[in-house]
């Protein structure tokens, strides 16, 4: 006899006693502090780098190609020799490489929204900005990796900065801090746009021109007047100049202060904004 509405024979779980124990023995913990919650989300971000390393590859391959292409194809024409151009361009490419990586912060948040996992995070009793702040802390690890790839490549090609390793580390630190500030913009895009692809397109459409309209590749003096003014005002130019300065040992304090102020300003504006968007956004 077929009895479609009755249930199939009970398939017992592996261990009912263990199930009952797991359900009953849960002493409630005290709740996570704001910092601990944010760091836990940072840990989640790092696990993703470990499990999905392709993302990292995507963002480092372009800058690597740029280093090679610009140094050996345009280097001679722009700076007279490939070696001299490498000294000029390498700190700039470091900036570009890390800034490109920031777009992925927005893609990651949007991907979360399209899955159900955000509902889980939102229904937890945690400090509201923790998921966003934590994600960006995890992303900072990615920025360091992306930056390191460029520096190592540069050294292999003959890049020998005056200020040596401490200068390079200082430049890297500054770039990562700026990237942290900039990534709030892409996080906002990630919360507003409808698909990870849309975030990728909008993100690169804004970060590409901004990077090229800076002094990353060429000296601004070679540009038409209006463009030169724009390039000089572009915070990415200030960041590239400061990075070059730190690597060569002649950084202007004003440049560093501007970079830090821009990063702090972006965080101050976008942290509360994105926290509100995160509470409401859904995919």
């Amino acid at each position, binding site marked *: *006899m*077929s*009895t*479609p*509405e*009755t*249930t*199939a024979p*009970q*398939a*017992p*779980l*592996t*261990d*009912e006693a*263990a*199930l*009952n*124990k*797991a*359900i*009953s*023995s*849960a002493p*409630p*913990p*005290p*709740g*996570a*502090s704001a910092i*601990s*919650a944010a760091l*836990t989300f940072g*840990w*989640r971000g790092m*696990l*993703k780098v470990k*499990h*999905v390393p392709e993302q990292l590859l995507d963002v480092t391959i372009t800058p690597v190609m740029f280093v090679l292409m610009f140094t050996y194809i345009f280097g001679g024409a722009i700076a007279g020799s490939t070696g001299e151009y490498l000294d000029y361009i390498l700190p700039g490419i470091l900036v570009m490489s890390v800034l490109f990586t920031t777009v992925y912060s927005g893609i990651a948040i949007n991907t979360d929204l399209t*899955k*159900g*996992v955000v*509902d*889980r*995070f*939102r*229904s*937890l*009793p*945690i400090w509201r900005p*923790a998921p966003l702040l934590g994600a960006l802390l995890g992303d900072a690890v990615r920025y360091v990796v992306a930056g390191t790839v460029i520096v190592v490549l540069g050294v292999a090609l003959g890049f020998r900065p005056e200020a040596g390793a401490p200068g390079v580390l200082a430049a890297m630190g500054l770039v990562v801090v700026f990237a942290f500030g900039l990534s709030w913009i892409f996080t906002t895009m990630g919360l507003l746009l*409808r698909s990870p692809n849309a975030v990728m397109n909008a993100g690169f459409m804004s970060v590409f021109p901004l990077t090229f309209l800076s002094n990353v590749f060429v000296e601004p003096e070679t540009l038409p007047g209006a463009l030169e003014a724009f390039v000089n005002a572009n915070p990415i130019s200030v960041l590239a100049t400061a990075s070059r300065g730190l690597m060569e040992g002649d950084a202007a304090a004003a440049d560093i202060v501007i970079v830090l102020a821009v990063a702090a300003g972006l965080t101050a504006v976008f942290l509360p904004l994105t926290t509100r968007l995160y509470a*409401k*956004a*859904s*995919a």
Partner: protein
Amino acid sequence: MSTDSVLAIEATGLEKSFGETKAVCGVDLAVRRGSVYGLLGPNGAGKTTTIRMLATLLPPDSGEARVLGHDIVDDADAVRRAVTLTGQLASVDEDLTGRENLILIGRLFGFKRAQAKERAAELLEAFGLAEAAGRLVKNYSGGMRRRLDVAASIVVRPELMFLDEPTTGLDPRSRNQVWDIIRSLVGGGTTVLLCTQYLDEADQLADGIAVIDHGRVIAEGTPAQLKASVGSGSLHIRLLDPERRSEAEPIVARALDAEVHLEADPAALSTTCGSADRAAEAVGELTRSGIEVANFSLGQPSLDEVFLALTGHPAEEQTPEEEIAIEEEKAA
């Protein structure tokens, strides 16, 4: 804080619109502590929106609700501390392993690293996921993912659990496992609010059911009351010889005094029937007339039949509206 109240959920006049679409229009609910309460309705009836409001994920447009004595708007954090939501989309991170998912949730609840690991191991073992603990969740089957999802919901045992269609898309074995888990949870004292499209599921698990249609509660009661109000289940008969169906039809109709439907299967017919005795009588009549019966079954009324009885229309899938609602929600 009226934490000693006997009601885990008390909602009055909850409303929510997304643009022009009224997703929920005036839902009242009263759910006793320690019970399993089912919200039964087709896709787009407003079940998910209701549950999301109660879980503080969506602010209601009007009406109010207290969950475990806490107002869902003014005291949302207190609600969040005591409830968990297992949504239609499994709320787990696909790019992490099962173990990492549970450690993540444990850490966010404030467990120390070692405690979180221990708790994760205990849950993975109990939910039959120990072997798959180190695999990425994106490689899990639907049933495993669901189980992990429920495990993530009870890393800290909630006082109240929202389950949104916990077995949709699962095979019967996985469905039974999820049901077992839910029963164990309720046995441990957790209140459950369950959204489902299946009367069968509500009947298996729930002490009380509210039937929802077009954002309103259209009927409420115990599963038995509800089934009684629908009247009857359905009798399906399959004949050995399709040629004789036309003969069988009037015999069954006379025996049960009910209208008989001829099904798409040329050997099958079905009708409504209140009791097993009468069903047996009708089948006996057929046998006596020399019409051989291949098999027959007496089933519970389906959601469709419940809806037909309660509203006079079958359970429509309001998918387009739901999609609009989701779009609006995103835009809001």
